[in-house]
């Protein structure tokens, strides 16, 4: 035991003398989660609006409806709309002052009512990425709604058409009643499809709130919530990288010749691997402590500390085992580094560290549980988001610990085999 402590002390001393790599890896999850939280965590004001230009060349009722869709209460959350002439709009687009220009052509209302093909022209600003896409999606939805409405109300529209073109004479009561009845029947026929809507969207934010509000205090809460939403997954990835760095020292010592020298002394392969595993565990725990402290600053509600600690300890074991296998089977430092980068990146992606599992394709979701990243990330989310206790995270802890023990044993065996065939000597 004192020999392992001696090995760990030496490795930590070396790490302290050359801490840059460790600090860079450690700062990654904080910066990553922090930047995303700052960008998206301050309510609607923080999200850039789509600067929409609408050139309405038609004075009909439907053209007005399309144009006003972007300035309605709901549309105003996303769009900053300005009415322009088409030429003026194009000049503004030229100067990059807008995300998109929508041109509603003259005769639009009439052609829609007549059932003729009409074209809504949308010009997108190529210098912007996502915002013009939003404009296009919104305009496309409007076109679909208009087309659907026209088909549903085809019969009453046919009755309405002469009245709309009547040239000043008000329709009689009987004509109004007739059209109203036609509209009523059309809607009744479509009632099953339209009411209630087949699809509803309910948005929810992390922490139990259902809607972001505009006050400054809630902006801060939203930022914290998003920070904590992002942090666990990215932190798991970063701690795997910390463990990778620590265990990579096996290959560094192979290159330095110090591994060979230790094995020529009173150090067995098993002791050496345990020493490196202990160093990896210490560095991972330090990283976890730092990231936990950062996360605690953003935490609003208390969480189960024992549950958090259990997941953390099991994660450290899994990290140690995973990296031990990678560095046990690799023949060169470069091979190991490449293998580790690919394996960790893929596992982090599949395991839901970067994206929430719900947003991944079903095939990826099915293989996610085969990665330690999945169990660690889900374990932390259970503790942080669902306020889970020890009992709820026992499966996560058990799987992570099992992965750690099995892989650590396999890694030590691989290194012992390499030592026997002289690959480390």
């Amino acid at each position, binding site marked *: 035991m004192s*020999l392992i402590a*001696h090995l760990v002390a*030496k490795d930590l*001393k*070396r790490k302290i*003398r*050359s801490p840059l790599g460790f600090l860079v890896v450690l700062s990654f999850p904080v910066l990553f989660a922090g930047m995303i939280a700052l960008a998206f965590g301050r309510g609607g004001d923080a999200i850039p609006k789509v600067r929409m230009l609408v050139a309405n060349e038609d004075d009909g009722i439907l053209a007005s409806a399309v144009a006003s869709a972007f300035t309605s209460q709901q549309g105003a959350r996303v769009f900053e709309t300005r009415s322009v002439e088409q030429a003026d709009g194009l000049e503004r687009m030229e100067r990059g002052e807008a995300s998109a220009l929508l041109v509603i052509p003259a005769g639009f209302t009439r052609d829609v009512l007549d059932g003729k093909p009409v074209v809504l022209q949308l010009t997108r600003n190529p210098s912007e990425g996502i915002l013009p896409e939003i404009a296009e999606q919104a305009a496309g939805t409007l076109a679909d709604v208009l087309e659907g409405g026209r088909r549903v109300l085809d019969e009453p529209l046919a009755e309405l058409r002469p009245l709309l073109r009547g040239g000043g004479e008000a329709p009689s009561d009987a004509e109004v009643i007739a059209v109203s009845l036609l509209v009523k029947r059309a809607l009744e026929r479509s009632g099953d499809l339209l009411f209630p809507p087949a699809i509803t969207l309910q948005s929810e934010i992390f922490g139990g709130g259902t809607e972001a509000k505009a006050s400054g205090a809630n902006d801060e809460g939203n930022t914290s919530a998003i920070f904590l939403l992002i942090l666990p997954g990215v932190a798991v990835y970063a701690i795997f990288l910390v463990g990778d760095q620590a265990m990579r020292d096996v290959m560094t010592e192979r290159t*330095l*010749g*110090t591994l*060979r*020298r*230790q*094995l*020529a*002394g*009173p*150090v*067995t392969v098993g002791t050496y691997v345990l020493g490196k595993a202990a160093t990896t565990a210490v560095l991972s725990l330090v990283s976890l402590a730092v990231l936990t402290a950062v996360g605690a600053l953003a935490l609003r509600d208390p969480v189960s500390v024992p549950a958090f600690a259990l997941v953390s300890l099991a994660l450290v074991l899994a990290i140690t085992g995973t990296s031990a296998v990678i560095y046990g089977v690799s023949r060169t430092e470069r091979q190991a580094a490449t293998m580790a980068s690919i394996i960790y990146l893929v596992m982090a992606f599949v395991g839901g560290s970067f994206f929430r599992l719900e947003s991944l394709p079903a095939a990826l979701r099915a293989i996610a549980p085969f990665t330690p990243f999945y169990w660690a990330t889900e374990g932390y989310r259970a503790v942080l988001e669902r306020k889970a206790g020890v009992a709820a995270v026992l499966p996560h802890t058990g799987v992570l610990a099992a992965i750690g023990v099995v892989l650590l044993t396999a890694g030590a065996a691989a290194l012992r085999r390499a*030592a*026997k065939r*002289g690959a480390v*000597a």
Partner: protein
Amino acid sequence: MATESGGSVIVRPVDVLDNSGAVLARIARMIEAQGLVKSFGSLRAVDGIGFHVRKGELYGLLGPNGAGKTTTMSMLAGLLQPDEGQIRFDGIDLAARPLAVKQQLGVVPQEPALYETLSARENLRFWGGLYGLSGKDLSAAVDRVLQLVGLSDRSKEPIRRYSGGMKRRLNLALGLVHGPRAVLMDEPTVGIDPQARLNILEAVKNVTASGATVIYTTHYLEEAEELCDRIAIMDHGKILAEGTLEELIRRVGGRELVTVRGGFAPEALEPIVAALPGVQITSAAPGRVVLTVERAGRGSVDVLARVLGAGLDVDGVSVQPPSLNALFLNLTGRELRD
């Protein structure tokens, strides 16, 4: 020095001999290797070698690169398992009790194996601690080896600032810090400047003077001649000859080696050699023939005259007096540095 019989004796670190060479006292064997074989795929790197090293002896393994010296050292250090054969340290079987052996063993690898971000003192404290030294014993041991290799003044600097020669000296110190009973030194002077080499050779002499047993591999003849009590000449995984420097040179039989190079067929020399008494062809290859010539009489002078007068296409001729290199040439047909 006087014996009970009144005759003079020669005291060597290995055996105590009388004037006739008879052993008066035998010093126990520290290292024994028997029938060692190690193959890597189809390459038989070490091919059934055996030797023993007495306590306090400095034993040299001399051979060109690829002779199998480092593989032999790796097996002695317990880093490689021999395919066949047995190694014993002070009677202890290395395979059966590796840690017991390694605890008494110091290893100085060919390339410096150091932690560059640590200082010389920190490196030494780590390696000393690995062997169980601690407290005042460790500090004293560290000071002792720093003094031995002349690095006391710069012991607190990170060794990434050291020159190549200083790193080599520290590399040697790391193998000695725990006071091993036997030290394996694998070409510790390769690629360093003459001054650093002298420092290391001096330190090695001090190590043997302190009573430690040393196995020292080298492909430098001068080092083997200067340092070693006994030398084994290795090539292609085999020990070709073994003995003290005097014994090995005696094996050449006081004969000079004449090497003739040129564009002639080796067979063309055979009638010339047959006509000269005391001359033998040791090796013959296209472009080079090695002859041994008795030093008595005109010896090599007659050989040179005949060869050059025979009208052969000769580019060059060299004559070597009896030496280790001459022995190696005699044994293998090539020089150590070929």
